[in-house]
């Protein structure tokens, strides 16, 4: 194997770009691997091709990406797009796939900036054609200008619902309804956290601005919705739900759902990093220190892949991880790192003040997490229902990995990414244990699809093109 690279950064979103620009700027030999064809991550998808009208339509958060991408592109970091990372070892060895060629490379230090995924929540009818994730729909709008032409219902929980409705409204899409599934009682808990959130008040004013614009346009935002169902024979025909004690139905061909973001922990799990349950965000996250260092020496994780903090926080966390990499690789000393880190640490702290408020406001009820109806599919790859998962628990398979062994739930091509959290929640509830105590699906590489032919040609070396 060739000499290892000093620093490999996985992901070219806000965190990865910031870490790369910072480390490369301090003389670190930096390689950035990204699955997408262009830098920016999901948040700034397609920004390189976006004209002024598109930028204007998507709003100021998106526009901020132009500058971020430019400074990354001008850094000396070696940027390799269209690259899938399909394995990561605790020793800094990575399996990568580029243009159909698999190889192993090694790094003295790795920064994982792989971002988040939309929290999958199975609900009745969620697998019908016509139902898709709101974040995925937003990416289609950013990257390919694709929007639903007939009406759309947006449902779930989280700030994205309002933002997407606002963007769609400006793009001329008929938004039939926005359904917020967080319980009304969340308002009280969130209220307690409002004073702290006011110190990151620009998020609140922007959110209120979107809401006001939606109201002016006559777009209905309904709170305290429950019992969401997608209804249809071969594809989505209607959405039914309860609000204010009444059952309602809306005819629609498009339901976009979003239940918040959770860190994508496949890479950190594969590398053997320690994870912990984050009750505020209702998900597992890799354990990290103030510099993003994981429990595995030489592997750091920053951005939404470490904990959901949004794009601005990801930039600051990325800069800090870049500085720490430069220190660990002996390009700067600790004092220099600390001096250069002052502003980012402060800005990061300030930016995160909005989070406890948002987390309380959008906290999902247990009915959505573990109360999945017995006949609802949990694993769409292997077609396993919540009832089958519970039956496996009753048969003595009292942890998610045993349930996986016996039912094949999570053994399909998505490798349990979609059903893993739901299974953990359902198993925990069925065993009457807190979900924080169950062991989620163990990750089995390859983390991205690799064919037998590609693996058979596996090469070892760092001489990437």
């Amino acid at each position, binding site marked *: 194997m060739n000499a290892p690279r000093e620093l490999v950064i996985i992901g070219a979103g806000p965190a990865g770009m910031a870490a790369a620009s910072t480390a490369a700027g301090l003389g670190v030999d930096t390689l950035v691997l990204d699955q997408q064809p262009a830098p920016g991550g999901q948040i700034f998808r397609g920004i390189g091709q976006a004209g002024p009208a598109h930028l204007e339509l998507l709003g100021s958060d998106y526009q901020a990406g132009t500058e971020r991408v430019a400074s990354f592109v001008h850094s000396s970091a070696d940027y390799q797009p269209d690259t899938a990372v399909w394995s990561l070892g605790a020793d800094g060895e990575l399996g990568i796939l580029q243009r159909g060629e698999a190889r192993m490379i090694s790094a003295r230090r790795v920064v994982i900036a792989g971002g988040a995924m939309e929290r999958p929540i199975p609900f009745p009818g969620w697998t019908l054609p016509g139902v898709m994730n709101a974040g995925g729909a937003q990416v289609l709008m950013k990257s390919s200008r694709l929007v639903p032409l007939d009406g759309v219902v947006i449902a779930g929980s989280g700030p994205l619902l309002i933002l997407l409705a606002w963007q769609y409204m400006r793009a001329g899409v008929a938004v039939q309804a926005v359904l917020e599934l967080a319980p009304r009682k969340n308002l009280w808990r969130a209220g307690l956290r409002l004073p702290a959130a006011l110190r990151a008040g620009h998020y609140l004013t922007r959110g209120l601005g979107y809401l006001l614009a939606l109201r002016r346009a006559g777009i209905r935002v309904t709170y305290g919705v429950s019992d969401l169902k997608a209804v249809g024979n071969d594809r989505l025909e209607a959405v039914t739900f309860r609000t204010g004690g009444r059952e309602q139905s809306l005819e629609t061909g498009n339901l976009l759902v979003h239940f918040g973001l959770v860190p994508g922990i496949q890479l950190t799990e594969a590398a053997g990093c320690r994870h912990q349950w984050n009750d505020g965000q209702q998900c597992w996250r890799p354990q990290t220190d103030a510099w993003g260092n994981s429990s595995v020496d030489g592997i750091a994780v920053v951005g939404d892949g470490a904990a959901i903090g949004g794009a601005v926080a990801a930039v600051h966390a990325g800069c800090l991880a870049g500085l720490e990499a430069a220190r660990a690789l002996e390009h700067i000393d600790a004092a220099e790192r600390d001096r250069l880190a002052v502003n980012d640490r402060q800005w990061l702290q300030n930016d995160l003040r909005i989070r406890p408020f948002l987390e309380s406001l959008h906290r999902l009820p247990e009915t959505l997490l573990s109360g999945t109806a017995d006949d609802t599919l949990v694993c769409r790859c292997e077609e396993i229902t919540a009832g089958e998962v519970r039956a496996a628990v009753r048969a003595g398979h009292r942890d998610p990995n045993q349930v996986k062994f016996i039912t094949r739930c999570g053994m399909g091509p998505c490798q349990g990414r979609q059903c893993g959290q739901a299974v953990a929640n359902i198993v925990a509830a069925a065993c009457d244990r807190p979900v924080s105590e169950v062991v989620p699906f163990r990750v089995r590489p390859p983390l991205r*699809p690799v064919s037998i032919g590609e693996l058979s040609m596996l090469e070892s070396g760092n001489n990437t093109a």
Partner: protein
Amino acid sequence: MNADVVIVGGGLMGSSAALHLAMRGQRVIVMEKDSPGRHASGVNAGGLRQLNRHPAEIPLAAAAARLWRDIQSLVDSDCDVKLSGQVRVAENEADMRLLEERAAQVRALGYEHEIIIDREQLYRLVPRLAPHCVGALYTRDDGFARPFHALTAFRHKAESLGVQYRTGSRVHEVARQGEDWQVVTDRGCVSAPVLVNCSGAWSQALCSMLGEPVTVNTGAPMMMVTERLPHFLDPVVGAASRKLSFKQMQNGTVLIGGAHLANYDMKSETTAIDFIKLSESARSAVELFPHVRDAHIVRTWAGLEAFTPDHLPVISPGSCATGVFHAFGFSAHGFQLSPIVGLILSELIIDGKSELPIGPFSIKRFLDETATGCA
């Protein structure tokens, strides 16, 4: 005394022993440090194979094959057994000569299950095989099953006969207490006059506690499975001069093993796939079945298993103390033997002897190799 027999290890061997003992009225407790089948028993390749076994294992493998054929009557489940044969292909004339010698050797021992098939018979059996092969050694009534399902069936049947499983109970200490063995775990103690060691990759620790002079090595054979493919293969395919086991499961996925070993860490009890080594299995798969080249690998994994110095299992009474019995060190080919190993242990424990020739599997064969005898 809490039971007649306490078994350490709730994997296939321990569960099979528990079942056979319970069928003969013994009260059995199984101590399992994790959950049953967490390691080798749950994640092995599931091959049911008499083909190409060490001569000493042939009588046991043949006896086990009879049990697998009617596994439903033993454990009330078919364990997803599919007896579609196993072939060991010859890719050239030199391979073929080796296989012919092997077939003659097995016939000389009085067994007829391993037969030579010619090129034409081979391609009728395995039509998608790459065209360069010349023949094969074939066992018609071999096949495969799903290990975790088999283990679960053994466990459920054993439990239905009164066997108690204590999961999450890691053994820290074993000690004589009068006539009994006291087994101390992090979740309390149990005692019984008979102690059975079926603790797989953790057998060394128990052997050390018992003063048994044996060195058990750990290994973690790697496996991979593809997405579902249209049906193209019935028998399990191996090759005379490759480390390969290749089979298409009932659901269309292709399971590829080859005894290449993963890295592992016994402290965290985890494995890490060595993809450079695993790529050899992929290369063999593509060379023998070119049409699977574009199939995606969905998962790779490895299970921690015990290997003895001679790669033959230990199935025997203890060498140091009475009331101790061992079944471990199956060296990555124990799945086939599991139903018969439980039966043998139950005979050894209850009758004091087994009908099957288990001399070669005595733990005493290691006595000469180590300077220290029994503690």
